[in-house]
């Protein structure tokens, strides 16, 4: 994995609460055996009409959304199915972080593993972001802080461990494989148990 140290971008806002992974990437696009190319189908049923043409009124189809790498979303983002295709689709589209007051457990876990930053903020910060779409914000990983325009950095919760992996570009599988001796010892202990 590429190390991630900081991120600076304008935001796109999808203010609805409980945006589930079926909206992020509908199930019919899950009959794939690779992780590439899912960005095309991101939010497919909101983004395209029945004929497959982009809906003008959907935020991601507007010029303002171009090159935005940070998505601001309503509470409980990523609920529902455990499909990792959801963070893959967001990443493939170009997003690198999601900001919300609450991010669903499995989505959060999946996102961290593929380099999409889940940023959980307080209600006041979220409200400000929802009311100011397109604001230029920055995220700093080593300090786990989010900085809004003309404001002091605010800390967001990110485990030391997750931060260490992201900043150093280490993936969890490498970490687990390095603990092979512990796993073998555990298996021996149990089989004698």
């Amino acid at each position, binding site marked *: 994995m590429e190390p991630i140290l900081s991120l600076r971008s304008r935001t796109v806002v999808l203010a609805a609460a409980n945006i589930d992974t079926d909206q992020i990437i509908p199930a019919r696009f899950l009959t794939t055996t690779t992780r590439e190319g899912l960005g095309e189908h991101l939010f497919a049923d909101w983004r395209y009409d029945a004929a497959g043409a982009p809906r003008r009124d959907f935020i991601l189809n507007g010029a303002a959304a171009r090159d935005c790498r940070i998505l601001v979303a309503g509470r409980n983002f990523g*609920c529902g199915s455990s499909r990792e295709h959801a963070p893959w689709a967001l990443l493939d589209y170009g997003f690198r972080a999601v900001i919300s007051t609450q991010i669903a457990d499995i989505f959060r876990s999946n996102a961290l593993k593929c380099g999409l930053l889940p940023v959980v903020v307080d209600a006041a910060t979220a409200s400000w972001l929802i009311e100011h779409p397109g604001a230029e914000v920055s995220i700093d990983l080593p300090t786990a802080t989010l900085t809004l325009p003309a404001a002091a950095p605010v800390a967001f919760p990110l485990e030391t461990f997750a931060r260490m992996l992201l900043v150093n570009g280490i993936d969890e599988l490498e970490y687990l494989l390095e*603990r092979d001796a512990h796993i073998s010892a555990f298996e021996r202990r149990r089989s004698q148990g």
Partner: protein
Amino acid sequence: MLEKIWDEHEVIAESADSPAVLYIDLHLIHEVTSPQAFAVLGARGLGVRRPELTLATMDHSTPTRSEQIFGGAPIAIESAAQQIRALERNCALFGVELLGLRSAQRGIVHVIGPELGATQPGKTIVCGDSHTSTHGALGALAFGIGTTEVGHVLATQSLLQRKPKSLAINIDHRLQAGVSAKDLILWIISRIGVSGGTGHVIEYRGAGVRALDMEERMTVCNMSIEAGARAGMIAPDETTYAYLAGRPRVPQGLKWDEALARWRQLPSDAGARFDREVAIDAAAVEPMITYGTNPGMVMPVNGTIPERANDAAFDQALAYMGFEAGAMLKDKTVNVVFLGSCTNGRLSDLRAAATLLRGRKIAPGVQMLVVPGSQAVKRAAEAEGLDGVFTAAGAEWRESGCSMCLGMNGDLVGKGEYSLSTSNRNFEGRQGVGARTLLASPLTAAASAVRGRVTDPREILNS
């Protein structure tokens, strides 16, 4: 109970700086969330560490039409056929047991685990599917994972995890006649909300849970994820042991006695502390139905849709559904009825629906699909003649699979159509683009199929 299972599976304990390395006893895999994980193993030159603790089947994108499974007809969705072939290839290459397309033991991954006795109390169980919470009904710690983690478990039989918090849901009294486990879990979600369980493992406790049979407990644990909890669990008891006894993959002979002694130690000790507790009165539960686009938008079948001021998401959900605040759902026309899924595709679910459909016909214009949760459920239902009850009523009887629960295997609800479904998610487009899903119990589904309108099953049961 969570603590006991957790502590027994810690390869490395968690600390402030790093999560625990947690050992996994059973890894279930299916065709949709595994190919990219096997690809990582291939790219890194890794094997499957414990193939004998790994069990594969196909259910999600797998068709339910007999001719596509047994009749030599091609699988209609070519990309789904490729996924199925990829799973066959990967299992052969990595030495993983596969209950494949024509296996008599194939079925929805969360139906076959308990059915085979592979799911057991005290085990850690994972699968690349959020409804893995189902297996917690037998006293296991079972949760859904993403594809990257599927790769971790394949390669190391372990996961990096922080211990979740515990939420006790204490359920008193018994469900009334005509009210089912599905209504109970929908009722619970209506109380705690779709994110009420986030960060927690739910333990369902109390007399109301003890009174449920094993399949009802699975329905309850199955939808824990719809309350935001990764896992739901119920302490094992005599109901659990009686269910497991004699199943093909449980320990046999002396080993069974040893296992039983071990399992009896699992229930939480008297006075165990939970991070949160919620009280539910099972006797107050009524047949429930969803009216919106998440499972928390739910009310009694005879209820009225609530009013919610200044809530754009709520308004949007009602607009999608074609409903208005203050309206009743009772007597609304339904176009499709789906009986099946990992929530309600077991034998007792089919029996419940059959009690209402026996000797009756589904209403003209209603399409009803009955999809058993596994091939074993299908055979058992056929042995009792349930298939004849369904087909005589005018329903279609299929091979097992996830089917209409999610639109990726050819079983779809049309745009704008109302589907009364026994599955677990009423998200926009879940059953097909523009499909409108009403979640309810098998009894409510059968009653509504007969009338062609949303119906409280007690009206027919008591008539």
